[in-house]
């Protein structure tokens, strides 16, 4: 071994400087080069008449191109490809943010004008043109969604408990698979199902709130099952075993140990499921219809709901149209606020009601 060292003393010599002096862009060099491409795109866009769309497309293309070329010259092919992909992937995220920002901006700027007391306290009875509100639609949405939750939550939770605690064999496999498949049922098909179901009993042309609740339940149950199942699976098995060891029966173990431990997660999953269906329009359009008056009775007659109200105010705004369209945008804004609020509530539930651990 000792004789081997003096034989090739020069061999590492040419390698070491190559490694040490490997050229590369400085830290944030990639970002800077991309920004240079972006600036070039801005100049070109400004020269041919400014437009945000053209700037975005040109910016991404030129940014990626400049990054690749500079990196290729300075760092070589492999690094250049790496930087190109980084630029592309980051741009993809930025592109996805554009519709979100644009959508929220559009809805807020169009909808904030009618966000007033009248909107929340008046229905559309006798309203032609100015004024009018969505009181009846908001109440209708709350009633129908509450009914849907009353139907879906027990069924969904029990089915989730079955899957986690009792299920075995073929039924469990089949159920898991079809619950997953059911999450993909188009919402309009759920509405048609409710219509077809009740038309058999009450005759064709049936429109009432409970039907809407049934349609929403078809959409809501699989969501509740899926998310509750995930939550129940997280409950440590030691807790169940400890309970059994104390001689507690299975159902009391589930009700007194498993469910209370998972209660925060269950609350979150139910809230998210409500948020998912409260904005559904298509099934309610089919089975609940629309009305101008306030109707608190989901068992009799058409009801107005916020999404359907928004849809009709936009597509059939009346004469003159601008007031109807204003109401439509405000309804859309209220809908977004409700959905976002539910999402926030879901997060708060999981934060504040999470089981206390460690004591």
């Amino acid at each position, binding site marked *: 071994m000792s004789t081997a060292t003096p034989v090739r003393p020069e061999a590492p010599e040419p390698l070491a400087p190559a490694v040490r002096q490997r050229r590369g862009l400085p830290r944030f060099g990639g970002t800077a080069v991309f920004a240079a491409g972006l600036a070039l795109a801005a100049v070109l866009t400004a020269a041919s008449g400014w437009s945000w769309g053209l700037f975005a497309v040109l910016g991404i293309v030129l940014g990626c191109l400049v990054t690749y070329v500079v990196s290729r010259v300075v760092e070589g092919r492999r690094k250049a490809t790496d930087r190109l992909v980084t630029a592309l992937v980051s741009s993809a995220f930025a592109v996805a943010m554009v519709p979100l920002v644009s959508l929220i901006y559009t809805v807020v700027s169009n909808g904030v004008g009618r966000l007033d007391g009248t909107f929340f306290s008046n229905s559309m009875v006798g309203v032609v043109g100015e004024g009018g509100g969505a009181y009846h639609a908001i109440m209708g949405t709350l009633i129908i969604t509450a009914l849907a939750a009353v139907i879906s939550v027990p069924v969904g939770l029990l089915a989730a408990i079955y899957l986690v605690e*009792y299920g075995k064999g073929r039924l469990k496999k089949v159920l898991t698979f079809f*619950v997953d498949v059911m999450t993909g*049922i188009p919402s309009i*098909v759920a509405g048609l199902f409710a219509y077809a179901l009740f038309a058999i009993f009450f005759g064709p042309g049936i429109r009432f709130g409970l039907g809407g609740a049934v349609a929403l339940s078809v959409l809501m149950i699989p969501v509740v099952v899926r998310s509750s199942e995930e939550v129940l699976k997280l409950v440590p098995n030691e807790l169940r075993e400890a309970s059994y060891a104390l001689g507690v029966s299975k159902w009391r173990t589930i009700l007194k140990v498993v469910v209370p431990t998972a209660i925060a997660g269950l609350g979150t999953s139910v809230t998210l499921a409500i948020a998912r269906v409260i904005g559904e329009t298509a099934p309610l359009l089919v089975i609940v219809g629309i009305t101008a008056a306030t109707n608190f009775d989901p068992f009799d007659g058409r009801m107005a709901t916020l999404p359907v109200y928004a849809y009709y105010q936009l597509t059939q705004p009346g004469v003159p149209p601008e007031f109807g369209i204003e109401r*439509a945008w405000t309804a859309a804004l209220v809908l977004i606020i409700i959905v976002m609020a539910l999402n926030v509530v879901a997060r708060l539930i999981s934060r504040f009601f999470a089981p206390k651990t460690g004591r």
Partner: protein
Amino acid sequence: MTSLDTKPRKADKPARAVRSAGDRTFAGLSTGAGILILVVLAGVAAFLIAESLDAISAPAAEVPGGEGVWSYVGPLVFGTLLAAVIALLVATPLGVAIALFITYYAPKRIAATLGYLIDLLAAIPSVVYGFWGLAALAPSLVPFYAWAERNLGFLPFFAGPASVTGRTMLTAGLVLAIMILPIISAISREVFSQAPALHREAALALGATRWEMIKMAVLPYGKSGVIGGAMLGLGRALGETLAVAIVLSVSGGITFDLISSSNPSTIAANIALQFPESSGLDVSTLIFTGLVLFVITLAVNMLARYVVNRRADFSGAN
């Protein structure tokens, strides 16, 4: 001896045989809830079939369009598939790129927040997407459509005449793409983040750049997850109703022209537009189209779940 012998047997047998009434009720209730879900799914199919029988058996001339249910539903199926395919072509690469960005490129501290922003896209109701597509997206695409007609008019997709309102098939497809983006990116994110750490670290240790690591260790592992996610997105795009009903300017017929103002409708949008004013055989025909949509989405979703689940079996992550 005898007492010792018999006691365990006595204690053994009842422990299995006697379940308290509460236990039996609860087990029955939860099993019943599970079976109820399967019954509901079967019920959806059964009631849709029952209500569409009228239209299927009616003489062709009485069905809307005058040529029977199949030629009524044909163009609608075409429109549905066309819009969904556009959405899929746009959303899949974008969704995968976003998933890669969030899992492997974004700083760890803000990655969860960025993921939440993408999920926010899924929370927005479809009717609001319709509003936005009509008021913001469609007008801003009009110049592009005019440009596409002038410069790309030789392609059948851009044959024109370009719509002046922007309410075209391409606009509808883009709105759908944004709506299914969170689904595709959520599932891709999940599978990418499960790619075995040892493979990734091995690739990096051999001197791979980040992209080479992803190409070698992450993408092959996540491939079937991405395919499954894309198909779930496809299922969602096929059934989207209100966004398309509001955005698309409909005239019927079959055309590949994506930028003109005469477009085929989609099944779901057609139901939403026609159903409130229909009665009798028209309703039955619409329910038949709904049945067709149900069968298509069911097939796509089952295939998607099969692909996703098959990966889960092999992944060893669970």
